[in-house]
């Protein structure tokens, strides 16, 4: 683990293993009520956690405190589990299956069979980058992003799955759609997917356009 400088109000913790990020994120968030008082944001990334402080916080003391907190394991309390009912009707699904040389059903079964975890959030409020140990596919982004990806699109890029919380441009491969509300700023917990949340995709029956 390294602690890297990030200006006069933040430090960046870099981990060796991406899988260690959720546990450390939980420990650092909990420590904000103790040795990390003065830390305003704890932001996980693929292999890192950024800690941003309030003005006037003692950055050197915070960096020293992180080094003592980090080795402790996660609290072990069970993660929140969210099911995403999904219609596997995405425009890129057939092409991806062909590229991976599997049939559609096998690809869908691999997606719904995997246990996913929110590794980190970014891109837009409520967007979670989902990883799974049992998902071995590495999917290239589309060479030309779509100008409009519909709200609720279930998508793949790199090792990740993601769900678009609202309509936006996007370059991920679209494999399905969901009606689940990913973001509601009026909710007590506005984001459905937060770092560490466990996610399962559940296939819904849907009618093909031509059968």
């Amino acid at each position, binding site marked *: 683990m390294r602690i890297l400088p990030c200006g006069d109000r933040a430090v960046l913790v870099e981990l060796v293993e*991406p899988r260690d990020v959720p546990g450390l994120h939980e420990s650092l968030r909990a420590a904000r009520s103790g040795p990390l008082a003065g830390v305003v944001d704890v932001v996980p*990334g693929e292999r890192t*956690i950024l800690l941003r402080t309030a003005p006037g916080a003692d950055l050197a003391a915070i960096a020293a405190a992180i080094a003592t907190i980090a080795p402790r394991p996660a609290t072990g309390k069970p993660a929140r589990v969210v099911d995403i009912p999904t219609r596997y009707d995405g425009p890129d699904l057939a092409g991806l299956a062909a590229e991976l040389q599997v049939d559609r059903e096998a690809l869908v079964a691999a997606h719904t069979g995997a246990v996913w975890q929110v590794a980190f959030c970014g891109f*837009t409020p409520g967007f979670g980058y989902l990883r799974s140990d049992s998902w071995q596919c590495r999917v290239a982004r589309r060479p030309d992003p779509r100008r409009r990806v519909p709200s609720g699109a279930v998508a793949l890029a790199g090792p990740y799955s993601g769900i678009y919380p609202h309509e936006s441009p996007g370059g991920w491969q679209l494999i399905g759609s969901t009606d689940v509300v990913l973001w509601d700023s009026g909710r007590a917990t506005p984001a459905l997917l937060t770092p560490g949340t466990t996610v399962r995709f559940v296939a819904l029956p849907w009618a093909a356009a031509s059968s």
Partner: protein
Amino acid sequence: MGGGVIVSGPAAGGVTALRVTGSVTVQDRGRPGFADIGVSGSGAADRGAAELANRLVGNEPAAAVLELVLGEVALRVDGATLIALTGAPGPIRVDGDPKPYAEPFWVPAHATVEVSYPPTGLRSYLALAGGIAVPPVLGSRSTDTLSGLGPPPVRCGDVLPIGPRRGTPAPPGPAVAPPPGPVALAVSPGPRGDWFTAESMRVLTDSAWVVHPASDRVGVRLSGPRLRRSRDGELPSEGMVRGGIQVPSGGQPIVFGADHPTTGGYPVLAVVTDADCDRLAQCRPGQVVRFHRVRPPA
């Protein structure tokens, strides 16, 4: 304005935008603490100027103000109220009468307030006693121009509610308008200096960088020499900060602003100090900025 005058009363009604050119958004101290769910901090880009405007009219520091970017606006107030303009010194008139910069002044009921294009600086802050009282989102009334959270940008015809007046206006003090010439900004190391050649930090601090017109609340794009990387490949997405100087593969830096994305995949070479982010927020397209290194605190 004499000291010790307490102004309080019912809500001053609202303020109507009669004419809006350029960008006008509602801003307060933003919504920090939600970066781990993808929400930018937002808030006033020049926090010091916004805070001063609030203090001058007796508002709490967290009250919402209007952030004007190189614009000309005309507003009509329903009720009599106290107003102050800080930041970029756009000439301000009430029913045609010129009013002072960075000093609170009374505006009678139904008067028209006009702010014109500032001679220097980029962002003006207009505080009204009681604050702009649009509904908060995630605890803040700030417009996030990246995600769309918060109120939409102010447009002609909009009526914005004003909160009840309380608090004592602060006496005006010496206020320094943003300067026209080159601006010196302090930087300390970022996390990815090792992604760049040893020469790149020297190029960063030796060069005169020019603010590009495609700059906005998300980031300030700078034109200048190319900052070269020492390694290939993509950086795994990681958390980003206001003031972070990220360098895409084209080599032209972008300094993150108030509405910056919470994570990114371009390496950050250095970070503008927190205090100097306010000064960068007043640099307009074509203005020159220069960076100098300061010792990091950790």
